[in-house]
């Protein structure tokens, strides 16, 4: 039958040659290919990353575990406005607001602060909308940390004890990335 488009190729199935039917040359070809891979794996560096000792490099825009930031004087920035909880599409964030008492000015920046602030890491989809919604630049998703696997469900609900950034400048981070010693030294002079 004449093909309508006239572009169809007629394929002929050629009978196999003796070498193809004997099958042995093809076997040796295959064996030589796998042997090349064997020596490549044995001599050169393998592509495997041995996980606990080596880790894959993170992307600089990776959104990982949340952190509640402190300001340059070491006070918590969060004012418990609830915008992050509203913005959260997975409804992972809950908080209880409280009023700052006298003498706590060194701890909280605004008069209102979060008494409790919890993120359920099982619900969180790490979209980063809380980070964009925050008017006080308090919540960030770190680029180098992840919520590790755990055995119990309630261990995935991160409270303030695990979310708030540490006070010491050496342990703090900027945009989720650990401060270099120089940056930590500058921060220390600012707070002093």
């Amino acid at each position, binding site marked *: 039958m004449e093909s309508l488009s006239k572009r169809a190729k007629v394929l002929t199935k050629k009978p196999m040659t003796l070498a193809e039917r004997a099958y*042995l040359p093809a076997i040796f070809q*295959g064996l030589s290919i*796998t042997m090349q891979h064997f020596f490549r*794996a044995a001599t050169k560096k*393998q592509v*495997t990353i*041995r996980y606990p000792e080596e880790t894959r490099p993170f992307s600089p825009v990776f959104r990982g575990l949340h952190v509640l930031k402190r300001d340059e004087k070491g006070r918590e920035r969060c004012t418990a406005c609830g915008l992050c909880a509203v913005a959260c599409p997975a409804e992972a964030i809950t908080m209880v607001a409280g009023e700052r008492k006298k003498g706590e000015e060194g701890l909280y920046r605004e008069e209102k602060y979060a008494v409790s602030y919890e993120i359920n890491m099982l619900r969180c989809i790490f979209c980063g909308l809380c980070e964009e919604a925050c008017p006080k630049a308090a919540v960030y998703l770190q680029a180098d940390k992840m919520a590790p696997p755990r055995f119990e469900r309630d261990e995935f609900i991160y409270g303030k004890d695990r979310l708030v950034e540490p006070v010491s400048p050496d342990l703090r981070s900027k945009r989720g990335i650990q401060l270099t010693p120089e940056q930590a030294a500058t921060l220390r002079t600012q707070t002093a």
Partner: protein
Amino acid sequence: MTLETLGWQGLVILVVFGLSLLIATYCTYAERVIAAFLQDRVGPDRAGPFGLAQPLADAVKMFTKEEFFPAGANRALFIFGPCLAMITALMSSAVIPFGNFLQFGSTVVHLQGIEINVGMLYVFGIVSLGVYGIMIGGWASNNKFSLLGAIRAASQNISYELAMGLALIAVLMMSGTLSLREITLQQSVAGEWHFWNVVKQPLGFIIFIVCAFAETNRTPFDLPECETELVGGYHTEYSSMKLGLYLFAEYINVFVASAVMSVLYFGGFNFPFQYELRDWLVSSRGMELVTAQNIITILGAVGVFLKIFAFIFFFMWVRWTLPRFRYDQLMRLGWTILIPLAIFNILLTGGLITFGVIK
């Protein structure tokens, strides 16, 4: 044969038994590492240095898993199947000569479990019984997939045993004996050029090694446990160490097949220039002839194990290179290609012997 000699021979049997188990144990590790290297991976490297304790970890896992009996299974035969597979696999290494003899004073110890004058037939008989382990286990599982695996194993083993035996006859025509030790000794004669049988029997060797792959149920002929079609084949219903025994028996069979091939075709414990080396040790180093002979024997035993390891590596190399055959292709290869080729090889060998080209 004195009691002392019997004691020594018993020690050799124990060593051969232990070596079969040890080599089979480390075959599981080698298989995984070789598979990984052929696929540009790392392989097991966590348990111990380079993952060398991995077989122990696997054994602990196997032993502590749950024993499971399928409903409607024939309990006695279900247990008997893996036992039989293991027993036949372990029995066949008894007649393989792993070395010549060691001499201490008046005691002569042959590095061979037992020397019988129909050694090759003994190996064949035991190997042909190995299929019962698979058949009984597959049937007793009361599972259609297991039964199909068992049936496949049976017909495959019978078909390829035929071609294997015919390929072997050509070797026996040259050697004139069925004793594996005699066949080994004939492949090297002091003071003259003497080639290993593989040079005289290249076609027979190719047929034999293809059949060895089929007899040990290794890829590309692992149709009995073909997981894409039969779930797990004959060991679908097996768990715990009963499954372990089946897997173990396969590796012991690989070891025995490698040993038989190195003895029949690659000179066994002979290695090039052994007589020259012995004479040199005696003349230049001033050793006694007995000591020199013992050294040669030990070197030969190391040599035969190197040959065996090379064959085991080849088994694994092929496994991770070639895809599985289809079942009708397997049968067609066995009956219409290998058997006629083997008969042709017998005719060729007979002709060459008659005209004095080889002896």
